[in-house]
C-alpha cells in the first residue's frame, strides 16, 4: 500500500498547479504514481526516479570525456571561476526556488556579474512593455470566478500550459461563472489552427508577425471607426464582431504568449495589447496576463525586483544595478563577446538559445547546475547535478499571476546529492573568502 502525498505543487509551468497527489513507496523513497498532473508535469516527477540519473558533479576533460568529481571540487571550480572573471554571466534561475535565487544574487553582487533569467528569451519584451505603459492585471482566481471573455493571443495553452484551461480560464465553474465554458466566449489569435484554437468560439488566423496591425485594428473597431477590408489577413467584419464580443463582456482577460513576444515587433506588440486592454476598460472590466513558461521565472523577476529594482537583464558588474535590454541581456552579451565566464542554473540555453550564442558558451569557462543531461551540460566545462526543486526539496515559487506558492518536498534526493540552495550557499562562502568581502 503506497502512501499518498497530497496538495503537491507541480514544478513545470507558470500555472503552478497545487492539487497534485503523488503516490510514494512505504519507505518514502520512491515515486510510484502521479495523479492530477498533466503529461509534462507527471513526466517531470517520474523522470526524477530515472536509474541513469547523474548524481555527482562531472568535469569535462581535454579529450571531451567526463570525469566524476566531488561536490567540494565543484564548489572550488565554480567559486574560483566566478571570482576570477571580470564580467561573468549568471543565467537561468527560472527552475529553482526564490531562496536559491536570493543567495545566487548575493554571489552576483560579490563577483560583479550580469544576472539574467529565462525571461530574456520568453517574456522579457513583455517586461519592457509593462515598464512602458503599465499593466492592468488580476489573479487566476478572479478569472476562474468572474471572467466571461477569454482571449488567447499567440499562445497555445493546450500544449504549453496543459491544465490552464481546465483549472482557471475556460472550463471551471466559479462563483459568478456557474455555467463554466458555456458562459464564456473564447477567442484565439494564432497563425496556426492550434489545438487551443480548435476549442475556441472564434479563431483569428492572423498572418504571422502581423499582430501589431490586428491589435491596432481592434482599437479602431472599439470606436466604430473605418477599417480597410482586411487587416493582417482578417476580414473587417470579423474584427468588428470580435470587438463587440470583447466590449459586451462583464470581465475579460487577454492571455498572451510567445506568438507576440518573439515576433518581430516584440515589445511594441505588447504595448499595443496593453493599450487594447486599457481601451476596453472604458466599456467594461478587462485585464491582461502573460503566460509565463517556467514555473518560477516570475519569482526570479520578483526577487530581483525587490533586491535591485529590475526583473531581468540585471547588470551588477559596475558595483550598482544597471538594466538595459539589448545591452545587458544574455544573447547580446554572448554574441558580442562581452562576458568571460558563464554560470547556468535551472535553465537550458544550450537548447533554447540561438546557436550563435551557444558557441560562445562552449568557448568560455562555464558551469551548469542542472539535474538533467541537457545540451547545456554538453557544452559546459562543469556539470553539477542537484536535487529537483518541487520534488526533492521545497521552496517558494511565483505563479504567472505573481501569487507566491510554497512548493512541497515529496521524496529525498539520491544519497549525497545537494540542493541548489545548499550548493549555492557553499559557493557563496568560498567566493566571500576569495573576494575578502
Amino acid at each position, binding site marked *: 500500500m503506497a502512501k499518498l502525498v497530497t496538495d503537491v505543487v507541480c514544478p513545470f509551468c507558470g500555472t503552478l498547479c497545487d492539487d497534485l497527489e503523488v503516490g510514494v513507496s512505504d519507505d518514502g523513497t520512491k515515486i510510484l504514481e502521479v495523479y492530477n498532473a498533466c503529461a509534462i508535469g507527471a*513526466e517531470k516527477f517520474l523522470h526524477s526516479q530515472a536509474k541513469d540519473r547523474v548524481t555527482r558533479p562531472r568535469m569535462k576533460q581535454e579529450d571531451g570525456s567526463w570525469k566524476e568529481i566531488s561536490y567540494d571540487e565543484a564548489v572550488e571550480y565554480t567559486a574560483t571561476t566566478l571570482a576570477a572573471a571580470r564580467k561573468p554571466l549568471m543565467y537561468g534561475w527560472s527552475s529553482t526556488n526564490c531562496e536559491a535565487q536570493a543567495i545566487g544574487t548575493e554571489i552576483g553582487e560579490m563577483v560583479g556579474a550580469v544576472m539574467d533569467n529565462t525571461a530574456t528569451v520568453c517574456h522579457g519584451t513583455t517586461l519592457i512593455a509593462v515598464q512602458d505603459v503599465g499593466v492592468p492585471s488580476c489573479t487566476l482566481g478572479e478569472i476562474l470566478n468572474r471572467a466571461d471573455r477569454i482571449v488567447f493571443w499567440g499562445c497555445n495553452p493546450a500544449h504549453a500550459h496543459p491544465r490552464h484551461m481546465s483549472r482557471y480560464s475556460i472550463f471551471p465553474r466559479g462563483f459568478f461563472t456557474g455555467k463554466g465554458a458555456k458562459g464564456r466566449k473564447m477567442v484565439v489569435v494564432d497563425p496556426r*489552427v492550434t489545438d487551443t484554437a480548435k476549442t475556441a468560439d472564434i479563431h483569428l488566423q492572423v498572418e504571422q508577425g502581423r499582430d501589431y496591425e490586428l491589435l491596432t485594428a481592434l482599437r479602431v473597431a472599439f470606436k466604430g471607426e473605418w477599417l480597410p477590408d482586411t487587416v493582417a489577413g482578417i476580414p473587417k467584419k470579423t474584427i468588428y464582431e470580435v470587438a463587440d464580443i470583447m466590449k459586451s463582456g462583464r470581465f475579460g482577460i487577454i492571455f498572451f504568449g510567445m506568438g507576440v513576444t518573439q515576433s518581430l515587433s516584440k515589445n511594441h506588440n505588447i504595448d499595443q495589447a496593453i493599450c487594447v486592454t486599457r481601451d476596453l476598460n472604458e466599456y467594461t472590466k478587462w485585464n491582461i496576463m502573460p503566460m509565463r513558461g517556467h514555473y518560477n521565472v516570475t519569482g526570479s523577476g520578483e526577487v530581483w525586483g525587490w533586491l535591485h529594482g529590475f526583473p531581468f537583464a540585471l547588470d551588477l558588474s559596475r558595483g550598482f544595478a544597471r538594466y538595459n535590454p539589448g545591452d545587458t*541581456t544574455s544573447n547580446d552579451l554572448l554574441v558580442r563577446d562581452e562576458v568571460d565566464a558563464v554560470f547556468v542554473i535551472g535553465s537550458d540555453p544550450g537548447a533554447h538559445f540561438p546557436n550563435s550564442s551557444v558557441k560562445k558558451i562552449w568557448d568560455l569557462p562555464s558551469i551548469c547546475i542542472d539535474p538533467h543531461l541537457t545540451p547545456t551540460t554538453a*557544452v559546459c566545462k562543469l556539470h553539477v547535478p542537484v536535487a529537483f526543486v518541487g520534488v526533492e526539496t521545497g521552496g517558494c515559487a511565483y505563479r504567472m499571476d505573481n501569487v507566491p506558492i510554497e512548493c512541497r518536498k515529496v521524496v529525498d534526493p539520491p544519497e549525497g546529492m545537494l540542493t541548489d540552495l545548499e550548493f549555492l550557499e557553499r559557493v557563496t562562502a568560498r567566493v566571500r573568502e576569495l573576494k575578502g568581502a
Partner: protein
Amino acid sequence: MPKIKLNLITGRTIQQGVSMEGGKEKPAYTAACGIIELDPEDFKKLGVYRNTNVRVTSEYGSVVVKAVDATQGPHPGLGWIPMGPWANMVVNPNTYSTGMPTFKGTPVEVEEAKGEPIWDSLTLVTKACRGEL
C-alpha cells in the same frame, strides 16, 4: 531537386515538453523536436514523402530534420519546428536591442536531404560548437 521557401516559426508542443522532461539525450526528444511540420500543400511543392529527412537552411544556419504532416494546420507557407536545438540552428538570432532573438518568422529554404542523419540534441549542439556540421 525542388526547394521551397517557407516562413519558419517555433514554439512548444506537448510532445516537446514531455520528452524534454524525460531526458534531452533520449531518442524521444529527437523524435519530438528534430522535425519540421509542413502543410500538405507545401509537401506537394517539395515533392517528397512524409517522414523524409529534409535540410532546412536560413541566412543564419542549416539543420537536417524530418518532414512530417502539420498537426495543427492548415498553415500553407508556414513551417513549424518545435523549440529546441534543431530550430535554434536556423532561427534569426538578432535581438534588435530588445534582448529577445527573433525566434518566430525566419525565412527558410527546405530541400530533401537524402542519406543525411538527424543528430540527437547533445551531438547536434556539440558538433555545431566544434564546427563539424
